[in-house]
């Protein structure tokens, strides 16, 4: 068996302000898995993603990360677009850093913009986009370079249900063809269950993983499954776990 792609053992993260965001976190993600992370607002989900991306250093504990050369895609919780660059240039950035010219990147970017519904806005500047459009540009950017690990922090929160479902399906299709590992933060139990193989539920801050729900449904998953009782039951299990996590007294 190959070693896990991500492995965190007894991780603490205390910020300079003194806030302990994460305490004694244990996490284990295999290469190619699709894992969702759920938890109350402010519990440390974003912090975990940042730790996994290497953007923060743990205060304590051991963290094994993918090799430095591995391409990581990251959808930040805020759109994080360069305000001086057009949507096209923003999406181009990861490829550009990797040495790909505008011409060679054009097809891929056009396709991606199409699928996030931003065709016609390639030349718009971020300040001229709606909130959801910014987020979609940011999603396109994370996918433009075939990632080995895709970290997404509530990517679809600002989108309407229909766009959201379409992008859920697109994401699953990309994941299945791309074979990347996906760590997905969301507040939607339905989304977490629909997308992932495992749903991890975090406790209140200082956050740690308190429960894990396995979703047995094989891929490809279709919208039809959303109406099945299996789906509803799994969602209910996650919701209950979430409720337990929220009411758990701080250890």
């Amino acid at each position, binding site marked *: 068996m190959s070693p896990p792609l991500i492995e965190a053992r007894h991780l603490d993260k205390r910020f300079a302000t003194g806030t302990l965001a994460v305490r004694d976190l244990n996490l284990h993600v295999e290469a190619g898995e699709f894992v969702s992370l759920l938890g109350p607002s402010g519990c440390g989900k974003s912090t975990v993603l940042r730790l996994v991306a290497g953007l923060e250093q743990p205060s304590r504990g051991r963290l094994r990360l993918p090799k430095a050369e591995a391409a990581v895609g990251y959808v930040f919780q805020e759109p994080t677009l*360069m*305000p001086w660059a057009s949507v096209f*240039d923003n999406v181009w950035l990861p490829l550009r*850093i990797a040495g790909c010219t505008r011409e060679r990147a054009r097809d891929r970017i056009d396709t991606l913009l199409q699928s996030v519904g931003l065709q016609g806005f390639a*030349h*718009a*500047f971020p300040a001229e986009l709606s909130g959801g459009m910014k987020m979609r540009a940011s999603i396109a950017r994370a996918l433009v370079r075939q990632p080995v690990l895709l970290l997404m922090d509530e990517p679809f929160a600002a989108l309407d249900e229909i766009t959201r479902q379409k992008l859920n399906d697109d994401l699953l299709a990309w994941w299945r063809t791309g074979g990347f590992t996906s760590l997905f933060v969301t507040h939607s139990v339905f989304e977490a269950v629909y997308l992932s193989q495992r749903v991890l539920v975090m406790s209140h801050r200082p956050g740690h993983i308190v429960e894990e729900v396995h979703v047995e449904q094989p891929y490809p998953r279709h919208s039809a499954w959303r109406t099945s009782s299996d789906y509803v039951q799994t969602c209910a299990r996650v919701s209950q776990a979430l409720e337990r996590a929220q009411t758990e007294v701080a250890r």
Partner: protein
Amino acid sequence: MSPARPPEAAAARQHGRDPVSRRKVRPPSRSVPSSPATPSAGWRRLLARHDLWVPALALIVATLLWEGLVRWAEIPHYILPAPTQVLASLWADAGSLATAWWFTIKITFGALLLAALGGALLAALFASSRWIEMALFPFAIVLQVTPIVAIAPLIIIYVDSTTAALLLCTWIVAFFPILSNTVIGLRSADPNLRDLFTLYRASRWQRLRWLLLPSALPYFVAGLKIAGGLSLIGAVVAEFTAGAAGRETGLASRIQEASFRTDTPKLYAALLLTSLTGIAIFWLFNALARWCLGRWHASER
């Protein structure tokens, strides 16, 4: 950033020219682009350029007040000449003043270019390493606070060409605001965007070009606005101390000549030219700021 801009962008640019009317609440009825080209369209367009005629008007009013003051208080011309006398002198000496002006302009823009390049490059170097910054910044400050007059002998000894000496002195005066502002600007990049570049493993050079420099642009341009005037005054002061009469001479020589020969109207004519040049340079950088920040930075929107 993008070579081909859609027509929408062009429209925005057009619009962006006029910062005042955009702030006004437009009545709905006027919002549809209208006003076909009438004979007086050019004139009306000029009227809409508040950034041109408001300052011009203010300067004219000030000039009239000055004229009035001089006449009313009977200030003798050798203390403070009236604008009419200054203009008469400007007209009478137009030839020599124009030559001098052109020489000063060349030094000013030469030094400004060097200051912009030098300041930005040095700032980029500082941004690449906090250690370099801490080690070298003191020297930049030393340059800024050393009076040219004091080191003029050294420059005269080691720099043969007068033009080179003038450029050097002017550069010393002008480069610091650009350096200091750009260093701050480079540090002001959005931390989230920094993280993004880290994540994509951008090289130092890529990070500098695509993240830090655009982030620093508003500060850099702010530095340019300061350095524009400073390099003009620097060119004049440099010529005071390191220039020589006779051959290539600029406005400083005209100022000094007029001063030593108590020709006050001519002195003020030269000062007037300097002032107008300063205003023009500032206006130029305002336009530059609008051009390169207009579409994305709050300061120009």
